[in-house]
């Protein structure tokens, strides 16, 4: 079997629909047994990337390979080593959970006996034994996602694509999905996860690639990305939008984010002992009152906001 350093590799992938550029040169490298999270808002190109890497979609430029197999020239080989789950794939609603699993197993070229035995194992592992012989149509959202994931694991492929596996799930189902994904990682599966939830990437992934508008805007571990944004944040909430605007005038460049709706502003602080006092003094000098304030560590949300914010201002400069 041909092997190279990376299990999943994409080089300068481009894809357009007419004049709309969906991918503008995506580069990805995923090492064996690790999880990479592709993080981005709706329409960033996450699903398009997954569909290309899982052989479902053609692309205009660049190269893509999985387990060393070119996704175009050796699509069949790629298909026998991957499992795909999430919004790019589905289960058959008129078949029962068990029937779905057994059928997909046989389509993965498992023998009927292996397929049945493995289906039973997965039903137990994914807590679907009671619902095994009901049609998938009757499943709840969480159960359907679990079945969907189980189906893609039927032949224990070494590479799994999880395309927004928890979008639209309630918090409890989401946690149980995370637990299942963590187990998969312990078994050494190589995973490409797409998500629009920063905490999901933070919780699960070894490496995060942030994409927006079809290009990679940042990559690294969750810690690395957070350190890019750096310091703690002080969030100030004002009685009304008017006093918030006044505060913006006073604090000037210190403010990194503000919201008219919540009458709030966020300030970066380097040393809590000095900077908080300084901000409050500045506000007090102009008789601006503060309703509440809170200090928090930077989250991936902050990373994302500052990255995409920068991206957008760069766009403006280019146009200007």
């Amino acid at each position: 079997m041909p092997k190279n350093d990376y299990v999943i590799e994409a080089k300068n992938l481009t894809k357009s629909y007419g004049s709309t550029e969906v991918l503008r040169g995506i580069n990805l490298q995923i090492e064996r047994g690790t999880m990479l999270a592709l993080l981005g808002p709706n329409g960033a190109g996450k699903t398009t990337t997954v569909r290309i890497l899982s052989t479902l979609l053609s692309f205009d430029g660049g190269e893509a390979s999985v387990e060393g197999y070119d996704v175009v020239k050796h699509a069949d080989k790629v298909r026998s080593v991957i499992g795909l789950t999430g919004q790019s794939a589905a289960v058959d609603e008129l078949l029962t959970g068990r029937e779905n699993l057994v059928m997909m197993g046989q389509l993965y070229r498992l023998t009927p006996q292996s397929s049945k035995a493995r289906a039973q194992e997965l039903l137990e592992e994914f807590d679907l034994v009671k619902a095994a012989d009901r049609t998938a149509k009757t499943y709840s959202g969480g159960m359907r996602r679990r079945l969907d994931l189980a189906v893609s694991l039927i032949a224990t492929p070494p590479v799994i694509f999880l395309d927004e596996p928890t979008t639209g799930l309630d918090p409890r189902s989401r946690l149980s999905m995370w637990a299942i994904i963590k187990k998969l990682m312990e078994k050494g599966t190589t995973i490409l996860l797409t998500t629009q939830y920063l905490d999901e990437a933070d919780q699960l992934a070894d490496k995060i690639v942030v994409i927006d508008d079809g290009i990679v805007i940042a990559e690294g571990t969750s810690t690395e990305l957070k350190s890019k944004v750096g310091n703690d944040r002080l969030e100030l909430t004002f009685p009304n939008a008017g006093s918030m605007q006044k505060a913006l005038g006073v604090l000037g460049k210190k403010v990194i984010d503000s919201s008219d709706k919540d009458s709030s502003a966020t300030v970066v602080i380097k040393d809590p002992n000095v900077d908080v006092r300084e901000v409050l003094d500045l506000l007090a000098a102009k008789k601006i009152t503060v309703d509440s304030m809170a200090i928090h560590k930077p989250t991936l949300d902050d990373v994302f906001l500052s990255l995409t914010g920068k991206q957008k201002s760069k766009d403006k400069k280019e146009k200007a």
Partner: protein
Amino acid sequence: MAIELVFEKKPKWVLSLNDSRLMVKRSATHIIRNTDQLLGAFFQPIMFLVLFSTVFGGAISKSLPPGISYLNFLMAGIIVQTVAFGSTTTAVSVCSDLQKGIVDRFRSLPMANLAVLNGHVVSDLFRNVISTLVMLITGLIIGFRSHASPLHWLYITGILMLFTLAFSWLAAIVGVFAKTVEAVQWLTFVLIFPLTFASSAFVPASSFPRYLKAFAINQPITQVVEAVRALILGLPVGNHVWLAIVWSLGLLAIAMPLASWLFRRKTSQ
């Protein structure tokens, strides 16, 4: 703990055939579980047969050759009409598979992609056999009598199956093209309704105005109806049998590769 997984080691064409078998099983399960559709496949032919024979029977029997009852005349027409409309199911199934993303799941597997289409077409054939049997039994109850020998019934079965396959593959094209299931329904209706009514399915084509007659006697549905009718009634078959076979094979030869090509193209953009 972990089970040892055993993979099939058979040649590729055997595995591809097995993919189609699995897809037929899937589509057949859909037919059985989709109760509304199943009831339709059961009651619609009964309704058509009873209504047509009683409503039109009196008026039309006068223009039929002597000694042939309208019910006996109608049987071939109503079977072909039901089979033609039944092909809509293939179109609907193909369209809804494409919409729901299950086709993407199949495409991510190392399976033969066209097995999905084969599955729908073949299971449609099963459903049409059931519909036809229901109609024949209903017909027998309300007075239908045939002079066909067992060999003739074999011919009839063959002709109808070939025709059903041809129409199901045509319907698959509509299913790939249409964006919604609703669109499939009106599109197939607009295509099939004129074809079945501007034929000799319900009345002898000899009563049509000249231009319509020219169309009616040369179109495939009339050929299939006339062939089946002649065999059922024990009348001379003339050119109808081989024309019916040529038409069906011809349509099949065009529709099958075209549907497959369109399906492949649609799913890999």
